[in-house]
């Protein structure tokens, strides 16, 4: 009985909802006061004007959000490749970006050599498989049980090697993706909504559909096949998986090959939107904030993270970018991710980090 009496009163402020509400209220109050006191209308331009624009021209808003979603899907695809490998082998695979470029270049290069388009796709898959086997043999197997940062570094080595290899095979010039030969649609659909025109590129719609299909297939593969179960077992614990007789080497080849397939699809989609060049490698760095936002180990996280980053970045650039000189797309994604991280250090969907001494 006395126990209850001496127990401290529950702290209202410890409740996350209450905390968030208080923070939001404080922000609103600060804005309200700021707008009154502000002589040069800076605060007005930051906090009021963009929202007015959104309400006044909803078609532009829809268009911006759509573009954000589309680039978000592509970020999510690259991030998906990272997550697959990170889950199964604990390797933070920096080479995913260059694998995308390499797969797309191989496909286009083979087509230019006179191979029919669909045969070229199959041959490219073969190349990605060979790459997976080689990476497992040459890089991963000798480095088993090394600290994460060493494996991370090794994927840098792979990146360098693939850049040099790809450029000496295919040349450094940008190439056209073979969209028509792969029966990918072209052109745009113009929709009449909210009193304005919103134009949707057909290829973007196709990208969204293919991406969702692929994610669905991957989920089924992980959930219901024997290999999928083995993959999840390896992700949980390398040692335990080894002890029940799962071959780590085989799993790694499969995982890197799956990442290779994801890379090829990403490469086709991205190549169809612009052209295939090594500039994509820098774009792949955008997958990092996506990963951080979603958590390294979560496939749904990669997708949600990609969409948040894509939309946030496009909205920020369109409505707030002009205030500070434009071009903020290059860093906004990282700041969005940083903002989320300060509240959830393991990302939105990541496994909770438990630290013991």
């Amino acid at each position, binding site marked *: 009985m006395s126990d209850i009496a001496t127990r401290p009163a529950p702290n209202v402020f410890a409740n996350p909802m209450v905390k968030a509400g208080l923070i939001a209220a404080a922000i609103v109050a600060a804005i309200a006061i700021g707008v009154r006191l502000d002589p040069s209308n800076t605060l007005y331009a930051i906090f009021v004007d963009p929202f007015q624009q959104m309400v006044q021209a909803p078609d532009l808003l829809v268009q911006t959000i759509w573009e954000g979603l589309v680039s978000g899907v592509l970020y999510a695809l690259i991030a998906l490749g990272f997550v697959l490998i990170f889950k199964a082998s604990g390797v*933070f695979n920096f080479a995913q970006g260059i694998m995308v470029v390499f797969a797309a270049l191989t496909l286009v290069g083979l087509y230019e050599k006179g191979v029919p388009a669909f045969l070229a796709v199959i041959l490219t898959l073969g190349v990605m498989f060979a790459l997976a086997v080689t990476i497992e043999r*040459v*890089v991963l197997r*000798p*480095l088993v049980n*090394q*600290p*994460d*940062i*060493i494996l*991370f*570094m*090794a994927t*840098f*080595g*792979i*990146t*360098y*090697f*693939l*850049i*040099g*290899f790809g*450029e*000496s095979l295919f040349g*450094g010039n940008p190439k056209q993706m073979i969209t028509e030969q792969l029966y990918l649609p072209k052109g745009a659909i113009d929709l009449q909504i909210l009193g304005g025109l919103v134009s949707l590129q057909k290829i973007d719609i196709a990208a969204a559909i293919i991406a969702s299909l692929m994610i669905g297939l991957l989920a089924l593969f992980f959930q219901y096949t024997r290999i999928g179960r083995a993959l999840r077992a390896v992700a949980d614990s390398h040692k335990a998986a080894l002890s029940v007789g799962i071959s780590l080497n085989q799993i790694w080849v499969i995982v890197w090959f799956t990442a290779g397939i994801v890379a090829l699809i990403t490469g086709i989609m991205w190549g169809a939107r612009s052209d295939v060049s090594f500039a994509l490698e*820098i774009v792949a*760095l955008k997958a*990092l*904030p996506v*990963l*951080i936002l979603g958590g*390294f180990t979560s496939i749904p996280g990669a997708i949600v993270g990609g969409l948040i980053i894509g939309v946030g970045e496009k909205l920020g650039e369109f409505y707030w970018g002009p205030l*500070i*000189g*434009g*071009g*903020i797309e*290059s*860093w906004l994604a*990282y*700041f969005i*991710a*940083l903002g989320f*991280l*300060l509240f959830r*250090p*393991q*990302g939105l969907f990541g496994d909770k*980090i438990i*630290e013991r*001494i």
Partner: protein
Amino acid sequence: MLYREAGQYKSTYAADMAVFPLREDRIGIAVILGIALVAVPFLGSDFFIASVMIPFLIFSLAAIGLNILTGYTGLISLGTAAFMGVGAYACYKLTTFFPNVNIIVLILVSGLFSAGIGVLFGLPSLRIKGFYLAVATLAAQFFLQWAFVRVPWLFNYNASGAIEVPQRTLFDIPVTGASATPETRYFVCLGLVVVLTWFASNLVHGKLGRSWMAVRDMDIAAELMGIKLLNAKLGAFAVSSYFAGVAGAMMIFLWYGGGEAADVFSIRLSFNILFMVIIGGLGSLIGSFFGAAFLSVLPTALKFGLPALGVPLTGATAEHVTFMLVGALIIFFLIVEPHGLARLWQIGKQKLRTWPFPY
């Protein structure tokens, strides 16, 4: 036989705790300094000094900076190039505001601005760890690089957006600007690098360095032992960014001699310096030098060495082959010795102690 501690008795604690307790090591370091001070400037050609030795020294300094953060404190940073850029731009603004102050003082002071920015971007490290932190530092990299292009005040409203390095002298000898000889610039670089390395060595062997290493090994345990994480982590960010900033200022003022700094301080440079630290050896000052030598000298050596060996290579192919070779060598060295070249060096010394009668 040649390298052995037998017969060298220590009579004080200070002698026992010295950084170079062996006489042979002290002779070795004196010989290396002698070579750097005498042989290199007098025997090396201008080309060798300007495009091998100066980059090597500058990258070494930047690598030491990152090693303090990543190797000693365990915080991964991908924003080194941006902090170097802060140093370069701060130095440029300082030369504009204080044209009469000695350029070397300004280079050293410009590191302080970089340190301040470093602390600011280091704040998230108190909450975020591991690869998650790497992305926080990427925010610094991309934001600062954006600022270098978009804030015209930083480059004095030039039309070209480039840093123009003015001519400055030290004892009436031009140090920066077009008329400075490679030898002079080399001596200035060498002096700065030697002094700052000595400073870093004292830091990491002292109280602050020990608290960094405790934080690296396990920050919660370190906190329980009474180490203030705030001081240790932000201190590491400050010192690391200071070194990076000085290296960046040296890079523009003593090596490039001006130019579009925003392109120089790109993400690729950040990665390169991280490679140097990892290939050289995490948590080792001498490893920073090895890593810088490996990754800054190797591409130059391949570029000019392969044609000399009779391998016919034209410009573009040579670059691709260099990329492939660097990539393959990174993987090779990681497999041979994941703890970096510094560990290989230690193993070599250990072998030498028992040579010629290993037991």
